[in-house]
């Protein structure tokens, strides 16, 4: 009995040991410069979101590729575990205690950051928000927020739609999960542009960002409206790609009978646009490492920076436009 118990204990210890080694390996693997202790490097703590999808990956890789040792930075990358805000706050706090020079923050959740940001301010560490904003939006707590603007992007999509259908038409909206900030912002921008045009929204349903659900929802909505739909606004690429397949299976031609507009601009969507499956793709630009670098330098020199920097995103409205960028698309 006691032997068995001791054995289990050892086994447990071994498991814990293996786990902690694994965890340590993870964190040091993410650190792009933990060994460099030279005094002339600027240390940057990056409280990141971590694995979430193609967009996020492009975004965070771009930041890591920009803040290199050659550029004079020692970037400490701390991705959240399972998109958990607590792990982000812990990482943030340890960066403050460590006394890094600058903190970059992509918050998984908007609220609950006041205390942490106040601590950083006390320690005189400038904080720059990347992509995600915080709530309440207290601009005194951070230097600036650098992000592509969802409302702006959706507004442009809406403007394109209104222009394409001067005589009006029926459209459906494929949304992300209900209640998510991005969904509300993309709806807000779209509605602002479409209001006053002759377009009629016949349905708005969530397809949870997924191609499969996008197809299933579109298939049913087409039947519910007797195929009398001329435009589909998909709030991300995946749902739009799914919708295109549903349109085809309903015996309609995407791009001719039904035009599909999406936001994000991933590689798959660009290919589909070049193929004529999609009619309009608005990029939501993840590559703003250069801008972030400039802002960090300004913040360290104590120059004034605007409180919100919008990253320009491109719109692609034809197969040719997509073809032109397809070759060197990074994400």
């Amino acid at each position: 009995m006691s032997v068995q118990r001791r054995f289990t204990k050892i086994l447990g210890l071994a498991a814990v040991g293996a786990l902690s080694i694994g965890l340590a390996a993870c964190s040091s693997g993410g650190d792009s410069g933990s060994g460099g202790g030279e005094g002339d490097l600027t240390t940057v703590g990056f409280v990141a979101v971590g694995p979430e999808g193609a967009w996020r990956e492009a975004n965070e890789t771009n930041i890591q590729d920009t803040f290199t040792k050659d550029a004079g930075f020692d970037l400490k990358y701390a991705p959240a575990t399972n998109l958990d805000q607590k792990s982000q706050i812990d990482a943030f706090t340890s960066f403050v205690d460590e006394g890094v020079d600058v903190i970059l923050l992509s918050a998984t959740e908007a609220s609950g950051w006041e205390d942490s940001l106040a601590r950083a301010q006390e320690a005189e560490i400038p904080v720059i928000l990347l992509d995600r904003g915080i709530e309440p939006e207290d601009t005194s707590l951070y230097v600036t927020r650098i992000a592509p603007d969802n409302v702006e992007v959706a507004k442009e999509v809406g403007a394109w739609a209104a222009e394409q259908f001067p005589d009006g038409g029926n459209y459906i909206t494929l949304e992300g999960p209900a209640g998510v900030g991005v969904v509300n912002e993309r709806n807000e921008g779209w509605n602002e542009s479409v209001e006053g045009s002759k377009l009629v929204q016949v349905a708005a349903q969530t397809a949870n960002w997924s191609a499969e659900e996008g197809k299933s929802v579109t298939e049913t909505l087409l039947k519910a409206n007797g195929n009398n739909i001329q435009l589909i606004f998909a709030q991300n690429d995946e749902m739009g790609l799914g919708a295109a397949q549903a349109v085809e299976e309903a015996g309609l031609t995407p791009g001719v009978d039904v035009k599909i507009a999406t936001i994000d601009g991933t590689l798959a969507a660009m290919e589909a646009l070049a193929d004529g499956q999609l009619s309009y793709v608005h990029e939501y630009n993840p590559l703003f490492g250069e801008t972030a670098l400039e802002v960090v330098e300004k913040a360290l020199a104590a120059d004034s920076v605007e409180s919100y920097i919008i990253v320009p995103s491109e719109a692609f409205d034809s197969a040719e436009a997509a073809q032109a960028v397809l070759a060197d698309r990074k994400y």
Partner: protein
Amino acid sequence: MSTDARWSWLRELIRKPFFWGLIAIVALLALNVLKDPNYLALSINPVNGNLVGNVVDILRASAPILMIAVGMSLVIATGGIDLSVGSVMAVSGAVAMVFMKEAGESGSLGAALGAIGLALLVSAVLGAVNGVLVAYVGLQPFISTLIMMLAGRGIAKVITEGQNTSATNDPFRWIANGFVIGLPVVFLLAILIVLVVGFVVRRSALGLMIEAIGINPKASRMAGIKPNGLLLTVYILSAVLAGIAGIMSVGTVMTVDVSRTGYQMELDAILAVVIGGTSLAGGKFSIGGAVVGGLLIATLDKTIVFLGISSSATPAFKAIVIVVLCLLQSERVRSWFVQRRRPPQGRMTPSPAPVKQENQEVTA
């Protein structure tokens, strides 16, 4: 005589645990017909002769749910639960997509078969891990399959390198989108598999042995049943069925989305099993019930979209339908109604009738 026979047949049906599930499906369809009188209309696509209609869409959407619900009902009958089916779907889809992307030939039947074989093999291995943890290590099914549920998504991410992967392969696509004699392949395939599984477990002693394990594992072992091998088989079967569901699911759009494919499908499967009248306590299963449950969930999902219920109200609508259904199924709740309906009789003769009825229900 003949009317008597008909009535007894009807009474038999009403007493089936999944009767209320059938009623709910009819009610949901009726709701859709109220919105659009042509809802049930089927037409034939003049180009390829396929049936087109909302009902066909429901059948297609139900296929993956049927697969995992049948697997789940067997696992639940052993007194266990399999929370990993959704993740196994993602893994199976990821394996198939990556294989076909590497193979590259878009028309090749060989590539499709290879992808399916490999996907099912990997699913079976995951199921075997579940089975070994449950049967031989003695971990609780909830915990071991929970581990696989979390690990599965990770495995899928590793396989696809975190990217949503798409591939082109016509035979593979045909499984999810094709038609045979006007009917969707995916539904025919699902029904065929359900029939085979049902036939094997009900025409042999297998089903009884699975139920015996769920009722009392110790007693069943003393009666000469070897629970370990059976448990292992059941978990492998559940994972393979989930693998098939994964293939059906990614086949519709030919894309695997590692974070969304099969997401929360384990909950749909458990719901389908419960709606079908199988108790989560184990010791009993009904393949027919699982099929009705799966069809109901597909109908419910499609109805929500067809009626245009706003996205934020969707979970509430789903919950209300399922709660009402579970209340209707509950014998206790039904007995309240029975008692309330005939109080004068009850006062005259001190209620022998309800007691008798209850007895019958128990034996049924």
